[in-house]
């Protein structure tokens, strides 16, 4: 039963994903690829889409995966699954356990979780890079365009931060890399 499967899969993701939307990416990727719901490439395309549309990335991803597997009902169930743990936990904290977060044990657990989550996020980026830029996991190649785009995007965002004193919007970076890739490909392939 796909509906139940979607709901439970995203319930699990919602319950253990610390560190916001990016913390969720490695989990969602693992779940959708192992279930054969999406390929790695579709997953990356959709991360770009959820970066460019409003709303929390986690909710966007749950809706997208849910819709692709089970239509509107699938989208709603996956979304409910992903938000339910956060909702219930916060309700509990807000109502009875205001001092919960100050418990030493909770704090110690989270001190261990935080670096793990950051490692998962960065490793996800590294493995995604290995697969799109060098074809690791299939036939090996070097994606020169991709490497060049990363170099441009990194330079632009560092310069932007230096001169404008704030973080550049991811949407701008996505748009920039789309334009570069489109132009280069049009010149090469026509």
């Amino acid at each position, binding site marked *: 039963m796909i509906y139940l499967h979607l709901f439970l899969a995203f319930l699990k993701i*919602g319950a253990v994903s610390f560190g916001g939307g990016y913390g969720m990416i490695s989990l969602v990727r693992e779940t959708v690829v192992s279930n054969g719901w999406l390929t790695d490439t579709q997953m990356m395309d959709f991360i770009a889409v959820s970066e460019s549309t409003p709303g929390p990335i986690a909710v966007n991803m749950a809706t997208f995966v849910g819709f692709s597997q089970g239509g509107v009902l699938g989208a709603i169930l996956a979304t409910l699954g992903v938000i339910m743990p956060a909702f219930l936990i916060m309700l509990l904290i807000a109502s009875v356990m205001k001092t919960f977060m100050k418990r030493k044990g909770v704090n110690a657990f989270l001190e261990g979780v935080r670096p793990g989550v950051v490692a998962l996020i960065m490793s996800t980026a590294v493995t995604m890079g290995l697969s799109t830029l060098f074809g690791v996991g299939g036939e090996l190649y070097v994606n020169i365009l991709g490497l060049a785009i990363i170099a441009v995007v990194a330079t632009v965002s560092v310069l932007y931060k230096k001169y404008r004193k704030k973080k550049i919007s991811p949407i701008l970076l996505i748009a920039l890399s789309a334009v570069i890739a489109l132009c280069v490909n049009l010149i090469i392939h026509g």
Partner: protein
Amino acid sequence: MSKGKTVLTLFLTFLKIGAFTFGGGYAMIALLEEEFVGRRKWLTHEEFLDIIAIGESTPGPLAINSATFIGYRQAGFFGSLCSTLGVVIPSVIIITVISLFFDRFMQFRYVQYAFEGIRACVVYLIFSAGLRMFKGLKKKPITYFIFGVVAALFISFYIFGIGFSSVICILACGCVGLFVYALASLKKPVLADNTGESENETRPRDTEFPQREGGAGK
């Protein structure tokens, strides 16, 4: 303001926030602050920072965490329910509409060309988000240890094509955190002169319930 009206205000405010924040939870923080600390004065600046800290350290999207918390504080259970639904509804509608056309959209040649660049950009975006979070971590040996082990395991498992469970990994990291804490609190009374270890740094603020938490951590 009557309770019904508060609930309605919460719903509409979070609907607006859900519809206009691009770039996930962190982008939302600025909007939430402007709305609830600045305009409506429902929260003080300290309370707001506490909500973010709690939201950061509990699982789930930050947007949901803060909507639930603020909603509950202002109008109880229905407040939290309506705030959470409000923040989620725009995403669900927008993404469902996009999903309807996504496959057809991706088949255009120009779109495929553009997405070749976008994929590289996504790698950069995720990596730099990780890097920002890395800089915010506590600078302790155990932090680097957990980070190094998890990253090495994840990447080598990927290269050799072995399945990896992030869930088990996250729980294991939490247990390592508890274990280190338990060790630190057990060691404290016995080896008072043991220097150069990571747990020494945590000593001053960990003096409250060392025995009990040490027992709970095993």
